[in-house]
């Protein structure tokens, strides 16, 4: 029941996407499994961090989830832009699919972070700019999902959520630079101008884990998109079922 006027000509697009993703998904899943096992092995055999001791192991899950939580929002905003400006038929599918995945990764970042905070700072939670801004990112995700779910007409919901996600994009730089602003939290030591300041023996497993997590994210995201396309197919079929009984009479003969 929900599709945009431009769809008739760009109908091919979702179908081609389905074929492509159907072919890709197994490979990506496989890659994810391999990388994940490798990453886990490397991170548990990594040397101790001289000041944080074993606790630094949490970094290998914490940092990737953190990066991906921000990447996820960027993805949503990018897709929303594609929807509002280029009317690309897959844009909204992508935006809608990326939101819950990104939300989960944000939640994981918060959890692992607090679990790291207890041994390091002696508390699960402090109202430090970095932590707070990530919490707000999580709320933004929730807001996107809630707004979409609270509007009946899905075309409308799509556009409005897109507007919101574009408005909310300011959060990303805030998170990125929140560490500079009298924060307890580690400053960027990998994603920074100039060489990483973190010791290679820790950097290597971190990067592998980051790569692995990204592939996992990709797989989940693709699967979510596929589900969304299917859901819309289903909806279109139902609408057509109604139309054949209801609307065809009303529509001018084609």
């Amino acid at each position, binding site marked *: *029941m*929900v*599709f*945009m*006027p431009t769809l008739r000509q760009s109908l091919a697009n979702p179908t081609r996407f389905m074929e492509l993703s159907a072919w890709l998904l197994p490979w990506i899943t496989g890659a994810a499994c391999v990388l994940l096992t490798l990453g886990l092995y490397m991170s548990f055999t990594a040397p101790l961090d001289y000041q944080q001791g074993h606790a630094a192991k949490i970094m290998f899950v914490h940092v990737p989830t953190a990066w991906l939580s921000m990447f996820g929002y960027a993805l949503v905003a990018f897709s929303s832009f594609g929807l509002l400006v280029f009317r690309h038929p897959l844009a909204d599918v992508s935006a809608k699919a990326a939101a819950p995945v990104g939300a989960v990764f944000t939640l994981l970042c918060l959890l692992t972070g607090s679990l790291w905070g207890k041994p390091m700072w002696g508390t699960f939670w402090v109202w430090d700019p970095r932590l707070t801004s990530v919490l707000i990112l999580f709320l933004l995700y929730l807001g996107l999902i809630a707004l979409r779910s609270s509007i009946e*007409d*899905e*075309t409308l919901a799509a556009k409005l959520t897109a507007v919101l996600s574009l408005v909310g994009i300011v959060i990303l730089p805030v998170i990125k630079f929140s560490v500079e602003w009298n924060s307890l939290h580690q400053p960027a030591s990998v994603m920074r101008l100039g060489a990483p300041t973190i010791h290679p023996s820790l950097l290597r497993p971190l990067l592998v884990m980051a790569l692995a997590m990204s592939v996992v994210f990709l797989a989940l995201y693709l699967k979510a998109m596929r589900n969304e396309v299917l859901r819309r197919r289903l909806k279109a079929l139902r*609408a057509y079922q109604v*139309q054949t009984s*209801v*609307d065809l*009479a*009303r*529509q*001018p003969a*084609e």
Partner: protein
Amino acid sequence: MKLLVENLALNRGGRPLLAGISFVVGAGEVLVLLGANGVGKTTLIRAIAGLLAPAAGSIRIEGGKPERSVGEQCHYIGHLNGVKASLTVAQNAAFWARFLGRSRDRLDAALAAFGLANLRDIPAAYLSAGQQRRLGLARVLLAHRPIWLLDEPTASLDHAAAAVLTRVVSEHLASGGLVIAATHVPLGFATARELALGAAAPT
């Protein structure tokens, strides 16, 4: 001036509702939209007003003010009256007069024409259904617009008010305006051309 609609197609909630609509309304002409409930009269009127993006086709004005959008040259009287319940009749009218027309010198004439003169200072909340409709209709006299879009203008109007409307419309036509009205009951306009929308409504 002329309003040209060329094979217009409109979607509602993603489903095609109207398609291949084409007509021309010239100065001094009325076009009456007929059709069963839910056939798309309101949808069409809203599209002309520019509130709804057409799925296909075009809506143009010839000989109007090219720098202005179609909507800006229309009066749109929808199912709702655009009346603020907490303001008095006069205040409501005055606002629309200034907002649409930058001047309120037609105010008294308009209220008098629709028999609201005695209700000037009653809060609109107290008005009866028909009185509120009159107040909504009075907008067409508060500011000049060449095109009038009226959606079931006579809904809950009594005979007197309906007659007033007919007179007002014919004056507007005489002065070279054009009118598009959706209705179920005869409006009694003179020279009215009729456009019957999609024969079978989804009933």
